[in-house]
């Protein structure tokens, strides 16, 4: 039987079976599980940026007002009813991790799958991400290409998994709607 004939035959499958695949996959709750090697790489990259290019980091933070509507701040956005404060005990930059890295909570990050690159960088939380189950899509508006300055690979492709270091509280909304990111501090290959 040819592949095309089998493909046609599959059209006769039970409708309930087929319709089950249309439902969005069940999202797992945030697990706060990180891969040690990746964490170490991300921490090293962050430290390198802090040591070599502090001006770039400041420039990135200065973009907050540009990329959010109505002059909102990250704090304003995180206080919206739809926002959720993510609890990731072992995340880099979390309260539990501050002593080790010296990072602030806003330097947390997450794994993401690149959905599209233009006109903005649209990502979906990856399965290993603390954002898994919290948001369907996140649109990162990079008005000044600050992530590139922080080491964003130039040859990203849709479907690729990356690590994004950014202020999480400003990104997450429980309803899964997209939200502009005020600042992305870094974006690295997994």
């Amino acid at each position, binding site marked *: 039987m040819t*592949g095309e004939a089998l493909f046609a035959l599959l059209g006769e*499958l039970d409708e309930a*079976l*087929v319709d089950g*695949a249309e439902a969005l996959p069940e999202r797992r709750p945030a697990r706060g599980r990180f891969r040690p090697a990746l964490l170490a790489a991300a921490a090293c990259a962050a430290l390198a940026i802090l040591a070599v290019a502090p001006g770039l980091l400041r420039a990135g933070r200065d973009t907050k007002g540009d990329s959010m509507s109505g002059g909102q701040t990250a704090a304003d956005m995180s206080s919206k009813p739809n926002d959720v404060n993510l609890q990731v005990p072992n995340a880099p930059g979390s309260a539990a991790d501050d002593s080790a890295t010296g990072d602030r909570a806003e330097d947390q990050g997450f794994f993401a799958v690149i959905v599209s690159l233009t006109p903005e960088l649209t990502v979906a939380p990856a399965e290993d991400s603390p954002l898994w189950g919290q948001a369907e899509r996140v649109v990162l508006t990079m008005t000044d290409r600050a992530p590139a300055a922080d080491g964003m690979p130039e040859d990203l492709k849709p479907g690729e998994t990356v690590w994004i270091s950014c202020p999480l509280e400003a990104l997450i909304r429980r309803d899964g709607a997209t939200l502009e990111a005020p600042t992305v501090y870094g974006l690295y290959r997994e």
Partner: protein
Amino acid sequence: MEDAAIIDLYWARDSRAIGETGAKYGVYLTGIALNLLGLPEDAEECVSDTYLAAWNAMPPERPGILRAFLGKITRNLALDRLKRLRAKKRGGGGPRLIFDELAEVIPGGDRPEAALDRKELVGDIEAFLRAEPERARNMFLRRYWYADSVAAIAVRYGLGENAVSAQLMRTRNKLRRYLTERGYVI
């Protein structure tokens, strides 16, 4: 509008049924048609044909799952269109990669389809898929029923493309072994 209400419109021969169907399932149906046909204009015509087919089918049909019922019509119409395009030598290659992947499952391209009991084979494939873990089953259906690209499936499930390809290959191989045990593969 609820599916039952849309179906009632079809049964009442109320033309609003088409508009309501398009509003609720137009994107879904276009996605299926586009996956198979590749060109937006072909997909659009295919979806229009789906509405007409649904209009002609209801009544007497009263589908239990309207979305899948319509999706099945679109899929069948798109495959018919592919064959017509191929006959006219106007392309119609369709998702060749998907067809090639499935060719591994029941090898022997020259084996006449008539030699197989289609209904029994479909039943066996359904039984196989129902026994699979939900994620593996749905990824298989996304690829080989909805004709989604590997990239689209990867995004949908938050996985890398390699992981999706590997999972699909495992499921295909497992299906082939399953069908071999039942005498479909010689």
